[in-house]
C-alpha cells in the first residue's frame, strides 16, 4: 500500500515536472538513521542549488537485516531508486555488485576518493561502485574521561592494563567497569570485531586465509583472542546490572554520565551521545581496543555507508554527476555542517574543523601514523556469519565458552561462503 502511494506520488511529481520545465527528479533510497537523513537532505539541497533543474525525492527504509532485504528485493525486481545508500564491505558483496550495480570509475571526481575506501566497494575486475557518504569510523572503546581523571587512570595500551583499570574502577567507584547492552544484540559483537587490528598485526594473512577456507577463528589463537576477551570480562563480573535487558541508548547514556566507565562501540555513536546527553559529550573519550603488545597498539577501522547506483537507473548521467559532487571538499563541509564530523573523511583534501568532539579527537592520532589502523575483517573478506551477535551474547552472558562460540561461528560462516559461491568451500 505504502509503495502504491509512493508510486502515485512519483507519477504525480513526474507530471508536474513535465508541466513546469524539463526538470529531472532523482529518487534516492536511504536508511532511516537520523544522521543519514540529515546528511542526504543537506547534500541534495546543496546540489539542487547548483543545478536548479535537478530535484530529489527521498525515500526511507529501515536499517539492519530488514533494510538489507528491501534493497535486495528492489534490486532484484529492477525497482531500485536512482541512487541509494548502503553498507560497504561484506554486505555489499551479497548484492552481487557486478551484476546489479553501475560502476562509477568514470565520474569526474573519481580520483578524489581514497583508495582505502574504494578497495572495499569494488569487484575483482577493478570496477568501483560507490562514493562514501560519511567519514571513516573507529571500532574500539568509548570511555568516561571524568571517571578516568578522578581515579587517576591512564588510557590502556595493552589488554592487561585495560583489565587492571577495570579492577580499579570496580573497587573504587560505583560505576560498572564495562557497559553491555544485549537487548540490542548487535552491540555484543564489538569486543570480537574491534579486536581485528590485533589479529592482523600478529597474522597479516588472516583475512585471505579465512576467505579461502584456510584459517579459522577457533584454531587461530590471535583470532580466538577476541572471543576470549569477551569471556574474560564477563566472568570477571565487570558488566552493568541487567545488561541483558539494556539497550544501545542505555549504553551510551551510561558511559556519558559515568554510570559505566567503558562501552565498546563504533564511533558512529558520538552524534547520538551529543543528542541524548549534550552536557556530557565532552566527558566521553575513545581508545582502540588494546592487544597484548603495547608496541603494536592500533585501531580497527570501519568504512562508512556509501552512495550507489543501480545498473538499470533512468537518469544515470545526472545520478553520476551527483555522486561526483559528493566526492568534493565542498560536499565534506556540507556533511560536517549537517551532522558534525566523526572521523577522517575518505575524500582527498577534506579537513576536520578544530571543534570536533573529544572522542573524535582521540581517534585522529591513530590515522596520522602509518600502520596504526587496519580495516575490520568485514571490509577485507566477503564472509561475515549472521549468527555472530547471538554467539557473543552467549559468551557475554556466560552461557557459552569462547572456544565453543568460535567453533560455531566457523560453522556459521560456511553458509555465507557457499551462498556467495566462493572457491574452496
Amino acid at each position, binding site marked *: 500500500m505504502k509503495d502504491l502511494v509512493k508510486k502515485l506520488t512519483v507519477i504525480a511529481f513526474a507530471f508536474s515536472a513535465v508541466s513546469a520545465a524539463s526538470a529531472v527528479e532523482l529518487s534516492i533510497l536511504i536508511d532511516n538513521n537520523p544522521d543519514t537523513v540529515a546528511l542526504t537532505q543537506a547534500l541534495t539541497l546543496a546540489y539542487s542549488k547548483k543545478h536548479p533543474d535537478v530535484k530529489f525525492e527521498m525515500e526511507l527504509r529501515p536499517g539492519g*537485516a*530488514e533494510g*538489507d*532485504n528491501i534493497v*535486495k*528485493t528492489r*534490486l*532484484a525486481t529492477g525497482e531500485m531508486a536512482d541512487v541509494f545508500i548502503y553498507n560497504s564491505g561484506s554486505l555489499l558483496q*551479497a548484492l*552481487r555488485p557486478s*551484476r*546489479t550495480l553501475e560502476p562509477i570509475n568514470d565520474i569526474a571526481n573519481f580520483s578524489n576518493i581514497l583508495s582505502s575506501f574504494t578497495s572495499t566497494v569494488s569487484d575483482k575486475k577493478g570496477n568501483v561502485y560507490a562514493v562514501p557518504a560519511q567519514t571513516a569510523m573507529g571500532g574500539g572503546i568509548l570511555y568516561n574521561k571524568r571517571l578516568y581523571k578522578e581515579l587517576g587512570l591512564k588510557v590502556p595500551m595493552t589488554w592487561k592494563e585495560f583489565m587492571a583499570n577495570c579492577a580499579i574502577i570496580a573497587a573504587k567507584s560505583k560505576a560498572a567497569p564495562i557497559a553491555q547492552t*544485549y537487548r540490542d*544484540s548487535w552491540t555484543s559483537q564489538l569486543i570480537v570485531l574491534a579486536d581485528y587490528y590485533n589479529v592482523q598485526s600478529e597474522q597479516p594473512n588472516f583475512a585471505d586465509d579465512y576467505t579461502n577456507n584456510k584459517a579459522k577463528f577457533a584454531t587461530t589463537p590471535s583470532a580466538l583472542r577476541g572471543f576470549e576477551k569477551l569471556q574474560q570480562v564477563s566472568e570477571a563480573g565487570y558488566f552493568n*546490572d*541487567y545488561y*541483558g*535487558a539494556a539497550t544501545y541508548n542505555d549504553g551510551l547514556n551510561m558511559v556519558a554520565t559515568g554510570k559505566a566507565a567503558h562501552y565498546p562501540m563504533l564511533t558512529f555513536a558520538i552524534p547520538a551521545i551529543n543528542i541524548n546527553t549534550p552536557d556530557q559529550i565532552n566527558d566521553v573519550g575513545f581508545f582502540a581496543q588494546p592487544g597484548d603488545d603495547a608496541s603494536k597498539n592500533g585501531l580497527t577501522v570501519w568504512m562508512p555507508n556509501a552512495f550507489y547506483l543501480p545498473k538499470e537507473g533512468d537518469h544515470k548521467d545526472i545520478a553520476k554527476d551527483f555522486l561526483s559532487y559528493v566526492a568534493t571538499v565542498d560536499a565534506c563541509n556540507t556533511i560536517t555542517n549537517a551532522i558534525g564530523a566523526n572521523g577522517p573523511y575518505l575524500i582527498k583534501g577534506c579537513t576536520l574543523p578544530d571543534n570536533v568532539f573529544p572522542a573524535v579527537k582521540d581517534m585522529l592520532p591513530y590515522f596520522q601514523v602509518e600502520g596504526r589502523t587496519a580495516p575490520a575483517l568485514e571490509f577485507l573478506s566477503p564472509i561475515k556469519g*549472521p*549468527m555472530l551477535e*547471538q*554467539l557473543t*551474547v*552467549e559468551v557475554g*552472558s556466560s*552461557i*557459552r565458552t569462547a572456544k565453543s562460540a568460535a567453533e*560455531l561461528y566457523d*560453522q*556459521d560462516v560456511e*553458509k*555465507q561462503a*557457499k*551462498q556467495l*559461491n566462493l572457491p574452496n568451500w
Partner: protein
Amino acid sequence: MKSSRSYPYWFILPSGLIYLVLFLVPTVTAFWFSLTQWDLFETRFIGLENYSQFFQEPFLITGAVNTVVFGAVTSIAKSILGLLLAVLLTSGLLGQSFLRTLIFFPVLVSTVGIGIAFTEIMHPARGMINVGLSYLGIHGPAWLIDPHLALFSVALVDVWKGVGLATLIYIAGLATISSDYYEAARIDGATKLQMFFRITVPLVRPATVTVVTLSLISGLRSFDLIWAMTKGGPGFSSDVLASVIYKQYQAGFYGLSTAGNIILFVLVALIVVPLTYWFNRREVDL
C-alpha cells in the same frame, strides 16, 4: 450419468484462477526454490543440499524442542484455563456478558504491540511485575533475560493473549450440554466436583478438540510474539523453528529458509493430522 458438479465452469473459473495464482503456483515454486541456492538475483540447482544444511543447523534441535514445548505448554494451559474461565463466566455472575467481552480483549490487540508492552512489563529492574513483587518482598526473576525462563515467559504472555478465544469456544460448548444431565446427577446426589469431571469435561470434548488443535497449530508456528519479545534470545535459548527460519531469511539464505519452511510445514502436519484423527475417533467412541 448426471454430473456431480453443482456449478457451471464459468462460475468456478474466477476462484479457480485465484487459487492457481495465489496458492498453487507459490507452493510449487517454493518446492523448487528449496532445491536451489537462491540470492534473489540468480538460482543454482543444488538438489537436497539445503535440506541437509538445514538439518545440520547447530541450533535446530534447540529450536525444534522449543517449538514442541511452546506448542504443548500453551495449548494445555489455554484449554485448562479456558474451560475453568468458561465455567466461571457461565455461572450467572453479575455483569457476565461484560466480563466475557473483557476476556476476549487481548485476542483483538496486535501481537507485536503486546510483545513490546510485555518486554517493558517484564523488565527485570524497572518492569511492573518485578516492581510489584518487590513490594511483597519477593525478588522477581529475570523473565526474558534468564535463558532457562525466557521461553516460558513468552508462553505465559501467549496464554494470556489467547485464552479469551479458548474461553469463548468453551462457553459455546458448555451451552450445548443439556441441563438434564446435571439435574439427574443432582437427584443422584453427585457433588459439584463429580459433576464437573463426569459430565462437563467429557461432554465438552468437541470444544476441547477445537481448542487444543487450534492452539497447538498456532503454538507450533508461533513466531511474532517470540520475535517481538526475545528475538529467539538470549543467545538461542528461546529460538523456535520459525525464528531459526526467519533468521536464515534475514541473512539472505533464501533457498535454505524456504527448505526450512517446507520442513516446518511437514512437522506441523505430522503432529496435527494424527492428533485430529485420534480426537475424532474418540468422539465417535463416546
